[in-house]
């Protein structure tokens, strides 16, 4: 712990430290996932969020535990930022019963209803209608809740996106649309898929406030999200944030990356959201290299423990294969 923090840093500094810690947790968690995947410990599709951590952490800062989150298949970051226990997320990667979805979902389908985290949806755009419905339920019951829905730039090409933008605006629903624009829909660059690449402009055409935000800067994301959530809660209807970000790794674990140039990745890495915040904190004397190292080490230790726990956790018995297809019969 840094001297500054130990002496009782100002609340803003403590908050920034917390943001940094959250982003670093996501980063280290996913680094571990790469290792575990390569070793064949975890399998399936694993979509890494590395490079985009500021979006999840920044948006989550703007909502409360009463609000709802709907996420995508690239949702480790959203889940960890939302506060899903590290152990339960890691166990889900292993497909164990202690996983947040009892191991039934895996990397792409993390759920925690107790935290109003309505899951990783692996159909591009498929979570958008759900967020509309959750918001509709809140509105019908007069709740002051907001539903934050994450989706990527790829979803903007889906019909469901447009249906949902229209419906949310038409019905004035309390939804915060968080478009994570990382410039590639899998391997297809934005400009090769979208006639109009200004995504905020397109959302704005449905009559809702929409603007672009630097998605590599967690403080900028937090600021924008707070503003939007406040407006939504005040009855301002749906808002749209285009969070401009970049994924440093392949679409899913490994790919040949024929669709983008290494130098482009290197360029974006210079704006690594973790480094960006850490640098700022160093500059304002909130963080030393040793602090950063210690923070990382502590997180690595937590993650190793989570891995050990996940490995030791029980697997679902095969006799229970068809559980959770239908709800249990009422007794």
């Amino acid at each position: 712990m840094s001297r500054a923090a130990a002496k009782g840093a100002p609340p803003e500094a403590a908050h920034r430290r917390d943001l940094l810690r959250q982003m670093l947790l996501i980063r280290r968690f996913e680094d571990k996932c790469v290792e575990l995947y390569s070793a064949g410990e975890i399998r399936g599709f694993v979509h890494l969020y590395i490079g985009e951590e500021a979006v999840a952490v920044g948006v989550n800062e703007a909502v409360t535990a009463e609000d709802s989150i709907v996420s995508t298949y690239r949702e480790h970051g959203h889940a960890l930022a939302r506060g899903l226990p590290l152990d339960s997320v890691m166990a889900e990667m292993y497909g164990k019963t202690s996983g947040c979805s009892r191991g039934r979902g895996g990397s792409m389908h993390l759920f925690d209803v107790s935290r109003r985290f309505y899951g990783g949806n692996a159909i591009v755009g498929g979570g958008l209608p759900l967020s509309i419905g959750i918001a509709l339920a809140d509105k019908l019951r007069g709740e002051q809740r907001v539903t934050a829905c994450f989706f990527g730039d790829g979803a903007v090409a889906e019909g469901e996106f447009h249906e949902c933008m229209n419906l949310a605006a038409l019905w004035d629903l309390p939804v915060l649309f968080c478009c994570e624009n990382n410039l590639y829909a899998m391997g297809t660059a934005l400009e090769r898929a979208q006639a109009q690449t200004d995504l905020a402009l397109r959302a704005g055409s449905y009559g809702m406030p929409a603007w672009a935000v630097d998605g590599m800067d967690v403080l900028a994301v937090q600021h924008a999200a707070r503003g939007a959530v406040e407006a939504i809660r005040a009855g301002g209807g749906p808002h749209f944030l285009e969070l401009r970000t970049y994924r440093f790794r392949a679409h899913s674990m490994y790919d040949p990356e024929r669709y983008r140039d290494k130098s482009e990745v290197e360029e974006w890495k210079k704006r690594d959201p973790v480094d960006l915040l850490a640098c700022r904190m160093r500059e304002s004397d909130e963080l030393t290299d040793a602090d950063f190292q210690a923070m990382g080490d502590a997180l690595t230790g937590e993650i190793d423990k989570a891995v050990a726990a996940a490995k030791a956790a029980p697997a679902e018995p095969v006799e229970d294969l068809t559980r959770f297809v239908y709800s249990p019969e009422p007794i």
Partner: protein
Amino acid sequence: MTGTETMKTTYREAMRAAIRDALQRDDRVFLMGEDVGRYGGCFAVSLGLLDEFGPERIRDTPLSESAFVGAGIGAALAGMRPIVEIMTVNFSLLALDQIMNNAATLLHMSGGQCNVPLVIRMTTGAGRQVAAQHSHSLEGWYTHIPGIKVLAPATLTDARGMLWTALQDPDPVLIFEHGSLYNMHGSLTADAGAVDIRSAAVRRAGADVSLITYGGTLSTTIAAAETLAGDNIDAEVIDLRSLRPLDDKTITDSVAKTHRAVIVDEGWRTGSLAAEISARIMEQAFWDLDAPTERVCGAEVPMPYPRHLEQAALPGADAIVAAVRRAVG
């Protein structure tokens, strides 16, 4: 009026009474769909409900099947009890992603956390000369999907009673209303209400052959059974009522008695619900069979417009009688 008194009604009115009843009894219930409000519903099922319950609970939607079906799923996740109406089963394909990838899978993907207490109603079937994009019987497709339940009310009692039970179900339930049934007349007791949604019903008892059907072909099948009675062939008619899950026991008990089965299904033959039932009979009642099972299905053609072609494409009483004769020998 006491419970034993009966009143004249139609299938449409019975369905409307069921929706009204649900809206009155549970304030979590609301109806949502294309033109369910001001227009009164494409088939006039919800006519008048807007005035009674207001636009929040009788909610017109844009032509966005995927969005409003998905919104129904989301609202159900968040504790509401939505009834979503899709005009026809053909249009439901625009929402198939939401039905299949979300409604049917969320409970499992979430390890039991996210049940979806949603009811989706839609019209199915042919017989009204509305051609190849409004006439098909695709409920068999939906029965392929674990995680949802599929109902086919074929009688006034079921039209009146299935909805409430479906709304009590913690999981998504699809109700298929055959378009030819809405004008069906009959009477219901004044206290008609919820019915079970898991069993098949024997609509006509018989000893010589089991006719297995559901929905719009029930009346055709009963007519065929009456014709057969004139030939001294005593046919049992089973109304499946629930297409998923299937009530295997009622089917196999009947086949054990009659030793012959003819399945009548308006859906296309290949890969049909009829095929599934036939397979189950093979699996569970093979040693009771005294003749191969027969299927009487819709012709494998996109539904043509002219009346005579449409009729030729549908399972008719003559085809059923012929199939029974083959089976009985």
